[in-house]
């Protein structure tokens, strides 16, 4: 970028100092991102994975957390769940795996500001 400019400026930082500055800033940015990235990763973990020890970095992502947030579920017998027609959506599917069926939206849903 700066190698193309022909005019030399005495106040322009040297390439070496730029590289060191860049390295430190990027390192800081990456470290401060860890908590945020971790919370996002936890949001797409299954409940057992999210509280496992040692913390799981490799896991199979699932939308279960979001489904649990947005729906109310009730427990049903395996026979009843087996008698139901095929699941209509992702949330239906992950809920049935836990022997539950979706009973309706959660109390949280009407409070989501994006839906107003």
């Amino acid at each position, binding site marked *: *970028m700066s190698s193309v400019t022909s005019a030399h*400026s*005495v*106040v322009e*930082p040297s390439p070496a*100092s*730029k*590289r060191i*500055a*860049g390295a*430190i*800033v*990027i390192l*800081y*940015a990456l470290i*401060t*991102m*860890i*908590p*945020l990235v*971790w*919370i996002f990763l*936890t949001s797409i973990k299954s409940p057992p994975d*999210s*509280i*496992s*020890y*040692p*913390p799981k970095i490799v896991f199979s992502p699932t939308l279960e957390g979001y489904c649990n947030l947005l729906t109310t579920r009730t427990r049903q017998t395996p026979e009843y769940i087996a008698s139901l027609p095929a699941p209509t959506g992702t949330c239906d599917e992950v809920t049935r795996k836990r022997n539950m069926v979706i009973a309706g939206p959660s109390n949280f849903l009407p409070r989501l500001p994006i839906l107003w």
Partner: protein
Amino acid sequence: MVEKAADATARATPTSVAHRVRGLSDRAIAWVFIAPTIVLLLAINIFPLIWAIYLSFTNYRANRPNAPVQNVGLSNYERVLTDPDIWQAMQTTAHFVFWTILLQTVIGFTLAYLIDRKFRGHAFWTTLILIPMMLSPAVVGNFWRFLYEPQIGLFAYAVSLVTGIPTADIQMLGSVSLAPWAIIIVDTWMWTPYVMLICLAGLRSIPDYIYEAAEVDRASAWRQFWSITVPMALPFIMLAVLFRGIENFKMFDMVTLLTGGGPGSTTEVASITLKRTAFESWATGRASAFAIILFVAVFGLANIYVKALNKVKQR
């Protein structure tokens, strides 16, 4: 100039409106327009303040609204100022404010100085660094509590991985010695970008020709930093310290969410004590007195600080 602008506005006003408001002077119309705002401000900001001052001289209790209210004079103030618990809370607050400001200023200024080297992609990384500042304190408090969990949290796991201390011993929120630092870490993580942003504005405002002149005078980089960069960015750094100081003096949300003042009362900062006095002991009068004392303290300190800031600016 102002008169002319007003005339132009008056000409642009539809004749029917102009007809209806004829007879009102410009000043009167201005008052009509700002009256709703003033009424709202008085009702929502000024009235509660005056009411709190009144309550601070009484023995009023908010959970007994029908009990007779007696004027107790200055005894509420006396009790607050002689209460050792409240002085303990003030010390906790001072510890918290001192360390958060120190860490945030040092890290924030260093980052701003490095970003000002304008390396490739610095704009992108600046934006990334600013993200923690944009989150709600409620969200931050909740997810840091999850990260601090000794059994399942990432923080304890990472620390034990590096130091070899078993995770069960890393009770960031449960240990008397670590809990204050847990809150300081979260506040520093969240608000360093804010200090960095203000410092960056300060560094960008230093004109290049000063550095060019210093270069002509063969001043070393070290000398340039201490004789140009620091003095010229100092008003901005001081402004950042002022903002963070006022904010952290009344810190409530993050402490409530992370420790709730515990363990014991080791992280009970002034605003937590205030809330407990007002809504757990229901000593509304005493809580009002405490609130007024806190307000006067912040107001006084901030005023002295602003005077110093103005002196630095005029140099």
